[in-house]
């Protein structure tokens, strides 16, 4: 059984067909990249999977269960977490709080228990803290000491990206959707991100779907590459096959006038 399966998805906005007839399966432990020119519908696809938009037609299955129609928080509870293309952190909260909030949905104590600080709540809180530190430790010690208690707005851009990834992992998801994880990063940082993403899979056991523009990153880590153009899937396969596919080249470079 595939971890994530999209069957014949359609979505339109007004007259614009943003996604048409897209099917896709993602197996557990895979790294799948979605590429395509600007406006190809990559982010829309993410928004469909995470429940921000509802598909017009078609189904989304996660671990064999239909998840289309669920609200974003329910989708996250099922085990899909995402990052955003232009960072949506809780800017005025600290790094630690940013990584604690995604664990809130797993809290069993009610609000009264939380106010009364019952032993059960305190145990859960302690565990949440451990998980938060564990996820942050993926990125080395730099977010671990004093930065833990600094508000996000004082962090550097790269550190914010790292915080956002740690936040997505902290939801307890199995599947991570990364929307341009290397956007705005220099080559050195991009390289680091590449390794980190691989470690997510190898050490963390996550399955990863990412949207990315930087081809060297895509080529280096993807098990499989999916190409979208005008909302349609035009190619799928390993990196080398895909980039040499004439349809893909046409989508990126245009057709030569005959």
């Amino acid at each position, binding site marked *: 059984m595939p971890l994530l399966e999209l069957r014949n998805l359609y979505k339109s906005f*007004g*007259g614009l067909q943003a996604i048409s007839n897209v099917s896709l399966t993602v197996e557990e432990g895979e790294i799948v990249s979605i590429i395509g020119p600007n406006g190809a519908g990559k982010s829309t696809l993410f*928004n469909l999977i995470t429940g*921000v*938009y509802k598909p017009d037609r078609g189904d989304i299955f996660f671990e064999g269960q239909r998840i289309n129609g669920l609200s974003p928080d329910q989708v996250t509870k099922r085990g899909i977490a995402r990052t955003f293309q232009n960072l949506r952190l809780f800017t005025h909260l600290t790094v630690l709080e940013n990584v604690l909030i995604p664990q809130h949905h797993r809290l069993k104590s009610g609000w009264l228990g939380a106010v009364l600080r019952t032993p059960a709540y305190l145990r859960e809180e302690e565990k949440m803290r451990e998980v938060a530190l564990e996820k942050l430790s993926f990125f080395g010690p730099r977010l671990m000491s004093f930065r833990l208690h600094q508000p996000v707005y004082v962090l550097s851009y790269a550190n914010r990206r790292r915080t956002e990834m740690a936040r997505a992992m902290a939801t307890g998801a199995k599947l991570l959707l990364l929307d341009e994880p290397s956007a705005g990063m220099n080559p050195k940082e991009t390289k680091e991100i590449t390794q980190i993403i691989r470690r997510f899979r190898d050490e963390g056991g996550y399955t990863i779907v990412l949207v990315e523009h930087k081809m060297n990153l895509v080529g280096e880590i993807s098990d499989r590459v999916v190409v979208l153009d005008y909302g349609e899937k035009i190619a799928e396969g390993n990196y080398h096959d895909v980039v040499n596919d004439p349809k893909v080249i046409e989508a990126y470079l245009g057709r030569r006038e005959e």
Partner: protein
Amino acid sequence: MTASKLASRSTLFSLFAGLLFVALLGWRIASMPDYTFARIVQDFLNALTLGSLYALIALGYTMVYGIIRLINFAHGEIFMLGSYFAFYAMTLTPMHWGLALLTTVLLGGTVLLVLRSLFNLEEPKRTFLLALLIFGGTFFLLAFRHLGWIEALLLSMLATGVAGVLLEAVAYRPLRGAPRESMLITAIAASFFLQNMGQLLFGPRVRGFNAETVLNQPRSFAIGEETVYFTGILIVVPAVTAVLLFVLNLFVTRTRLGKAMRATAQDAEVAQMMGVNVNQVIALTFFIGSILAAAAGVMYSIRFGQIHPLMGLMPGIKAFTAAVIGGIGSLPGAVLGGLLLGFIEIYVVSFFPTLSAYKDVFAFVLLILILLFRPSGLVGEDLTEKV
């Protein structure tokens, strides 16, 4: 959602509401034997008057919201100021010449400055002519004779328009680019400020607003065997409203500034890049909205015969409801909503006299229902946030 689909949906919606209204009307008339044709006509005149007044105030709300996405809570107080300006214009004239001179200098000076900045009157010769006109006109009006309601109305419109511009410049302009919640809070504070300032300057008590008896003299005409009673104001209000709406429409569609205004409502940032002076357009919007509110205020006071500093509260809320019903941001919507609300209010009270205690509650209920279930109003566009 395509435009045609949207249009058809709102048409259906209004059609449904209209049908419901007519059905209710028919049922109620059938069950009330003393509800004669003459009373329907009388109610119609009342409703048209009230609706016109709401429409005039609602235009101010909707224009400001369309341009800077601010619910101008203080608009009801602008309406109140309009009434008081006219009241003082009518009761304090003719003034002692010294006082008239002082008022002319202060008032005329402010008006001149504001008008200059609003309409790009940089040329010295034009400015001089305008100054002459304003100072001379104001002094002439104030010093020599007792003002009638038309002069008072015009003077009050001018003064209130300027007051609106000043309000925007002092309270709202410094908040350009601030979160919308902050602007709303400021608007509420401005509303409280003006209310209490009104109580302080004009006195908290209710005053009689005695305009010419011509407008309030009971008249009547006969329909068959029945007689319909009315007063002049019931004719004047819809007529003045129609004239103002006609002028407003010409201004918005035909002039350069009107086009700049519509462009700013579409997208302020882009309009600015295209060379529109956004601050000027916003000030102009407040000017026009306040002028209309002043007109409504004066006519409202003539209609109901009394004024007090808190008089702007309920008409303000109702006009805002009207703007929301019509679809906030849309000019025809505001007029439609105002008329609709006027008709609903008059006829509901007329048909169900027991409900008159809930008249004000009803306005709020309607406001909430519209916001909850059809926030775009009858003809407005959908304003949901994009992800």
